[in-house]
């Protein structure tokens, strides 16, 4: 490995040493702690067994590894009495536990799972539904796939617990159409769970009934958006609904109260039940508790999925450390990082952010944090003007053109807009067309400003957050790599003047089927 890489590792280790990272819950064994420096490394809660040789998706294997024990215990748990004498049912108590665990949604928005559950309208008399969002289609993300294929029973156990806690009798797993194998494995796992009485009528003799069915999507990204998903599950086009009034917790599936949670979130529910909310909250960092699975792709030596404590590993470590990305390709320098799926705003190598940190006296003081030293968590990335979204990190080195990369993403959004809102439907296509020109020799000097102008007119003016998802990459790429976009347009314009052709004479029209 080149010396540049070594230097980067060294500086990262120094940084970690000076900040000092605390240990973790006793019950969880670390692979190795060689020195007082806490080595950034994986901590596997959800993926504990998934990649062990011989570990399979069948129920026998899951049971052998202690599977469904947590469910058995939870269903038998008595209620709880609070210090003020108030009595909680076992379900209420567990909903409280999920809230105090600090678990935040792993699907994209990072919203508190317990708080979301507390919004459910329990007074309407309508049935409450739960939907597992297994649409996994945010570009860069490939974590839910690991769970669905390798450990489907863990998801089912998490779902049964979540359904029980929320008085849900009917739940669905909405899985993207391009996961046919995942759907088959889930169907088999659900049948196995039914046979063992973990699912169906009178679960484990407790009188609790629950059914879970698999519902397959059919290749549309917008089905990942929770209200689009609900429409799709109702057998319609996945046109997202406007909020208010259509908050799923109140007016969801069949206009009944509905909980939509990501695959990984629901698996965490099982671990919260198993280890207790306090123990769970000791993992990760305050307000960013537990572990999460990071999907790392792009220009690193060792791409893959890594389960880490939230906020205990930096972006730089994810890219460069031996335990994760193992650095860039030989001779390459870092150029840009997309930190939370394609919809998150890009980070530029060398950027420095002012973050609030606790000083020695307990006061919050602003500290300059270089981009690579940003802890990979919800709050730090938000403070840096972006988001950890679906936990997908896409790395780009200095051999890459940001114009080409953005053109690729813009094409994705143009293809995937559901078409309900004019700014999104037209704007996403205009941006893709503009970037197509810019990457095919037909650029203009004003294109950088033009792209920004369109993006600004999409965000905040649409029914669903897809509008932002389409606008943010354009806004951030163009702003942070302005010269590159300018230069491309100017070069094209100059070439045309030289050739004496003002128009885009040689340009093939944009076509995306």
């Amino acid at each position, binding site marked *: 490995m080149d010396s540049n890489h070594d230097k980067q590792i060294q500086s990262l280790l120094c940084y970690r040493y000076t900040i000092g990272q605390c240990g973790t819950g006793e019950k969880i064994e670390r692979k190795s702690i060689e020195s007082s420096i806490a080595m950034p490394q994986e901590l596997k809660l959800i993926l504990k067994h998934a990649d062990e040789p011989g570990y399979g998706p069948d129920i026998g294997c899951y049971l052998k590894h202690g599977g469904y024990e947590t469910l058995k215990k939870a269903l038998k748990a008595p209620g709880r009495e609070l210090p003020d004498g108030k009595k909680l049912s076992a379900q209420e108590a567990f909903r409280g536990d999920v809230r105090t665990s600090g678990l935040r949604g792993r699907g994209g928005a990072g919203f508190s799972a317990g708080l979301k559950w507390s919004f459910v309208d329990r007074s309407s008399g309508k049935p409450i539904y739960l939907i597992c969002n297994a649409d996994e289609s945010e570009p860069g993300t490939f974590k839910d*796939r690991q769970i669905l294929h390798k450990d489907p029973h863990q998801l089912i156990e998490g779902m049964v617990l979540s359904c029980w806690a929320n008085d849900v009798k009917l739940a669905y797993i909405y899985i993207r159409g391009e996961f046919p194998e995942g759907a088959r494995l889930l169907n088999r796992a659900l049948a196995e769970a039914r046979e063992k009485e973990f699912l169906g009528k009178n679960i484990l003799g407790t009188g609790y009934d629950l059914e879970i069915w698999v519902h397959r999507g059919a290749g549309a990204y917008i089905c990942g958006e929770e209200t689009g998903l609900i429409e799709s599950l109702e057998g319609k086009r996945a046109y997202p609904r406007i909020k208010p009034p259509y908050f799923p917790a109140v007016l969801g599936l069949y206009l009944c109260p509905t909980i939509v949670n990501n695959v990984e979130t629901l698996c965490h529910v099982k671990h919260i039940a198993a280890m207790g909310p306090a123990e769970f909250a000791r993992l990760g960092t305050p307000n960013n508790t537990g572990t999460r699975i990071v999907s790392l792709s792009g220009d690193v030596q060792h791409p893959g999925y890594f389960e880490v404590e939230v906020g205990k590993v930096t972006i730089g470590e994810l890219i460069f450390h031996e335990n994760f990305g193992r650095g860039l390709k030989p001779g390459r320098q870092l150029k840009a990082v997309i930190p939370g799926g394609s919809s998150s705003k890009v980070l530029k190598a060398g950027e420095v952010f002012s973050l609030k940190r606790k000083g020695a006296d307990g006061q919050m003081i602003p500290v300059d944090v270089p981009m690579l030293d940003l802890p990979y968590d919800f709050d730090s990335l938000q403070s840096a003007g972006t988001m950890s979204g679906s936990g997908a990190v896409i790395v780009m080195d200095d051999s890459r053109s940001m114009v080409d990369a953005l053109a690729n993403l813009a094409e994705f959004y143009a293809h995937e807009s559901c078409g309900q809102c004019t700014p999104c439907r037209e704007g996403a296509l205009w941006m893709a067309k503009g970037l197509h020109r810019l990457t095919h020799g037909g650029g203009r000097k004003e294109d950088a400003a033009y792209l920004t102008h369109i993006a600004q007119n999409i965000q905040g003016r649409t029914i669903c957050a897809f509008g932002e998802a389409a606008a943010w990459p354009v806004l951030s790429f163009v702003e942070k790599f302005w010269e590159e976009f300018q230069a491309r347009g100017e070069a094209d314009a100059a070439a045309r003047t030289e050739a004496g052709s003002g128009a885009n004479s040689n340009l093939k029209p944009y076509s995306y089927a």
Partner: protein
Amino acid sequence: MSFVIPKNLEAELDELATHYPVKRSASLMFLHALQEHFGFISNDAAEWTAGKLGLQPIHVYELITFYPMFRQEPIGRTQVKVCRTLSCALAGAAGIREHFCRKLGLDPHAHVPQTTPDGRFTVEFVECLAACGSAPVVLVNESLHECVGKGQADEILARGK
């Protein structure tokens, strides 16, 4: 209607419909099953679905024309879906798709799905297949191929039905 649906498939669909309190919800699952059986969704199949679920035909047609995975015409027996999105693009997905097209005598620049005249292969670009860590990836019918180079692409073609 000349359209005939095998008894066991109909039984399977009837069972699927019981998964939902509202029958219309089953339409996507019906279309998947019908497409799997017939290779595509004919107008007869669409209208049969509508009748079965108590819908107007437009309620089914609007799905077939919205969801990219449904198709109204037969395609190649081996369906090659090359991921086009960023992580795969960085890993050379465009070159892989071009390789498939050139080997099969298809237009390497056309962006639409293309089928070989002998009906063996359909090649198309699709969006992120959620396997970006092993880019570039190609979905061949129902099996995922990861880190696909030209050699592996040739093997896929050699094994194609």
